[in-house]
């Protein structure tokens, strides 16, 4: 299979998944996290080649925050610009619960065909 086709498929899949993963990461932790920390957690959990570039999570974090699913606060940093720490809100948790349900349903549905267990 052609490499650019693979990349395009991955990118189409990632459309909503990045937001789902970010909500899940922030839901699992008790600390507030800033963009770089979140990126590193994703990198650590990922084996082999990254599914998405870490630069793509920042605009998604910003969009989730603008829609009220995350709150943020700014903390000065010595290494660069002040860091924006994110925390999930109750709306974000509700959204995560809903999206997780959709994700499981989709995954099971797709698997049924790929594994060949569908009637």
């Amino acid at each position, binding site marked *: 299979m052609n490499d650019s086709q693979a990349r395009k498929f991955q990118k189409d899949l990632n459309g909503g998944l990045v937001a789902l993963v970010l909500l899940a990461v922030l839901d699992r932790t008790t600390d507030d996290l800033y963009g*770089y920390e979140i990126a590193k957690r994703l990198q650590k959990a990922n084996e082999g080649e990254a599914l998405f570039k870490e*630069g793509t999570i*920042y*605009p998604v974090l910003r969009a989730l925050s603008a829609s009220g699913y995350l709150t943020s606060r700014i903390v000065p940093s010595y290494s*660069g610009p002040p860091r924006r720490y994110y925390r999930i809100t109750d709306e974000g948790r509700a959204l995560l619960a809903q999206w997780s349900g959709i994700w499981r349903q989709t995954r099971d549905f797709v698997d049924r065909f790929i594994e060949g267990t569908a009637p």
Partner: protein
Amino acid sequence: MSCPAPRSIDEYLRQLRAVLADEDPALIQDALYDAEEYLRAEVAAHPDKSEADVLELIASTYGAPDEVAAAYRETEIQVKAALRSPVRPQTASPGALTRFFAVYSDPRAYTSLFFMLLTLATGVIYFTFAVTGLALSAGLSILIIGLPLFLVFIGMTRVIALGEGRLLEAVTGERMPRRPVHPGAPTSFWARIVAMITDPRTWTTLAYFLLMLPLGVTYFVMAVVGLSLGLSLLAVPFIAVADHFGAFESWHHIQPGPPDLGPDFLNGPVGYALCGVVGVLLLTGLMHLARGVGRVHARVAKSLLVTHSL
């Protein structure tokens, strides 16, 4: 990718800026801010490697400048689409009269009118702040406290400029920065002061603060005169009708008789109705004016408060 792989943070940011050149300056400011946060944190996390070594791997972790730029463009489009209220499908092209009165269903017209009333207060505050800050910094510059005072003053102008941008985006919908401009790599105290003084944005921001006093007074007067004149003209026919049915019988020691419009030919049903019509036209015109002022003001503010030549 067409450009060579960046070898330093500054080079990466320059390339990202170049790829985003056609985008909204506010989006560019946000994207550069995020990239700088990541890159500096990444360099700080690998003290054993040089900046060039860290940057070498950036394309596979953070993403190359064009990939990151694409992510910002896409998210911006999605967020804009999600936040925009759905456009009602238009059955027929609306007539001029419908379009004239449609301004009442545009929330921007109300928020802009509110903004025009608010600018008297913000204009006075900004003007006072700018003049006081400049005068104190200049006056005390011969003493040792003049310099820190100037730095605090410039720092505060940036915070206020960001806040004014957020207010204008809420009022007019014009995209404004959501992050401050980062001063760049930590440099010496003196280099920062020189950068602040030579940055044209410092001076355009101060010019905006000074300009806000005359503009604020003008906007406020336009809004108050338009509202009071329009509402009182609109009230004339209602008062005349109420008077006709004797609503003011017991008040006649204060205002004897029906409204007095001066010339005789106006003092009758036709004149009163005319007043009502003029009142409605005036108020509608004011709403159009407010919306226009909001739009133009946001553009002016953007050109003075947001850096274009980053």
